[in-house]
């Protein structure tokens, strides 16, 4: 048996079939995303035929549809997708870098940081609009850097980073809850947005900064994706393979935090999207190759579908954060069931 002959055949074929598989998945996910996008534009409180939807998208004025599609559904759907892409990609980047699927940015303090900044800006400083976004991004980045700095001791150990993040998150969460109780004329929608994430009242103007950050930070993440994948082998092995571990870590953190903070500034901390997208993508696409794009698509799906479900398929209108947050509990239980069977990590 010619060993090298056989394995060379299987190696290349193996790689080719893997690329094909990935291509199918990404294509399939994108198609699904597009389909649900179309659905949300057509079917809401009323049904708008596809022709009319198209006309509105092209800028024409259609009676009975322009408002519903153009002002209500479109901004909502666009924002959901952009936020979902950001959360999904940032989440899996963190989980890969820290080598732990439980170490997602919404658990280690980044989301709390951004929300705290936003809530503070709105309630205490009475700011609105872009100013709030800037505050959110600034405080998100600030918290991330503080967590990074606090866990720095002869380099950053993933463990310490996560634990410090959890501590900081707890502190910020109670601050947010407190500030919310102090806001007298707080209406339900706004409070929900900052406690658990919502795309109610979305405006298309919010989408542009989100898109810009997605392109820039997403781009940075995609270029480091090879080094990021190498980090899964452990800091030492990755270093031995020529990866600049600290630099890669820092880049990933800054880019991921940028994504999360900007998205949170627009929609609030949509619970668990960053946490779930990575593991779900890993289940579908397999452990090989970069999960950045698949997780981003899954994130977008989660938010888009979650919002739709929360609006129309529940006994009362729930913001998307409650729907996705509620998904977290069954997922954790699913982990338990798997634990009994295989006793392994996610």
């Amino acid at each position, binding site marked *: 048996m010619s*060993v*090298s002959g*056989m*394995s*060379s055949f*299987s*190696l*290349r074929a*193996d*790689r080719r079939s893997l690329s094909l598989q990935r291509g199918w998945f990404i294509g399939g996910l994108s198609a699904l995303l597009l389909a649900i996008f179309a659905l949300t534009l057509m079917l809401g409180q009323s049904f708008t035929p596809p022709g009319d939807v198209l006309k509105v998208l092209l800028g024409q004025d259609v009676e009975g549809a322009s408002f519903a599609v153009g002002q209500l559904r479109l901004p909502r759907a666009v924002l959901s997708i952009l936020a979902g892409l950001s959360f999904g990609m940032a989440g899996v980047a963190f989980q890969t870098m820290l*080598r732990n699927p439980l170490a997602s940015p919404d658990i280690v303090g980044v989301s709390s940081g951004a929300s705290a900044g936003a809530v503070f800006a709105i309630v205490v400083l009475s700011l609105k609009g872009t100013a709030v976004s800037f505050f959110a991004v600034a405080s998100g980045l600030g918290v991330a850097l503080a967590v990074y700095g606090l866990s720095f001791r*002869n380099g950053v150990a993933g463990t310490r980073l996560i634990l410090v993040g959890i501590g900081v998150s707890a502190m910020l969460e109670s601050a947010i809850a407190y500030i919310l109780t102090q806001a007298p004329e707080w209406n339900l929608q706004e409070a929900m947005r900052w406690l658990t994430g919502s795309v109610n009242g979305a405006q298309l103007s919010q989408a542009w900064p989100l898109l810009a950050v997605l392109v820039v930070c997403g781009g940075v993440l995609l*270029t480091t994706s*090879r080094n990021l994948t*190498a980090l*899964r*082998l*452990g800091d*030492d*092995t990755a*270093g*031995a*393979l*020529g*990866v*600049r571990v600290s630099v890669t870590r820092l880049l990933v953190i800054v880019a991921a935090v940028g994504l999360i903070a900007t998205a949170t500034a627009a929609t609030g901390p949509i619970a668990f999207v960053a946490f779930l997208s990575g593991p779900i993508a890993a289940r579908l696409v*397999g*452990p*090989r190759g970069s999960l950045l794009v698949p997780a981003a698509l899954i994130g977008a799906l989660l938010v888009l579908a979650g919002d739709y479900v929360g609006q129309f398929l529940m006994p009362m209108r729930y913001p998307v954060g409650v729907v996705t947050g509620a998904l977290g509990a069954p997922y954790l239980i699913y982990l338990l069931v798997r634990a009994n069977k295989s006793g*392994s*990590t*996610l």
Partner: protein
Amino acid sequence: MTISGLVVEDLTACYEEREVLRNLSLAIPPGKISVIVGANASGKSTLLRAMSRLLAPRAGQVLLDGKSIHHTPPRQLAQVLGLLPQSPIAPEGITVADLVSRGRHPHQGLFARWTREDDEAVESALAATAIADLAERNVDELSGGQRQRVWIAMALAQKTDVLLLDEPTTFLDVRHQVEVLDLLVDLNRARGTTIVLVLHDLNLAARYADFLAAVAGGTIHASGTPDAVLTETTIHEVFGVSSRVITDPTSGRPMMLPLGRHRTLENASALGPAGEL
């Protein structure tokens, strides 16, 4: 293939705030198998890590072919210097072929294009470690000995001139220990790779090393051929144990027999050089 001389000059290195190595100098002979030995916490691993650039020294430098490794871009360095660390982490669900392929990382640019050269490197690595038939298996399912061979294959796929290994045999049973060390000898003979490894078993070290260095007191206590280094005096100074050194009749290399308080024959000190009474 260039002759790669790895030279440590005046190295002072720390491990968790503690100064472990001080003014250590060592010249690793190119194209040979060198083994570093020493007591626990003597700094053997720290030395290896410093030599592989994983650890930044507080003072001194490490030179590869005359150039400081700290001023070489990591990717470039990884193409000529490989390291197998002590407890490498295999991601869940990764296959053998995939893991070994990771060894090509430093040779691939930003847009990882797989060339024929990459494929060949991986194949020959799989063949050299005799794990080609395990290529599709999950690394988690393999035995300790098999897994170690997979890691070595990954380091091999990197196709470096120098290979550093940190205690590659520590958790393996006797059979796999010997297998791994024999594999390294094959590699050294076939490709001329300079191999530096840390071993805690003195006798295996003496048997397989062309060059032996003993670390004690934060510096190199003795270095040279196994015959020169493995003497009763040196062993006592480095490890704090009394011993008898005889010639191993199976390999012709020195072999140390530790002398404890019990289970030592009355005339143990009367043993001749070949172990005869």
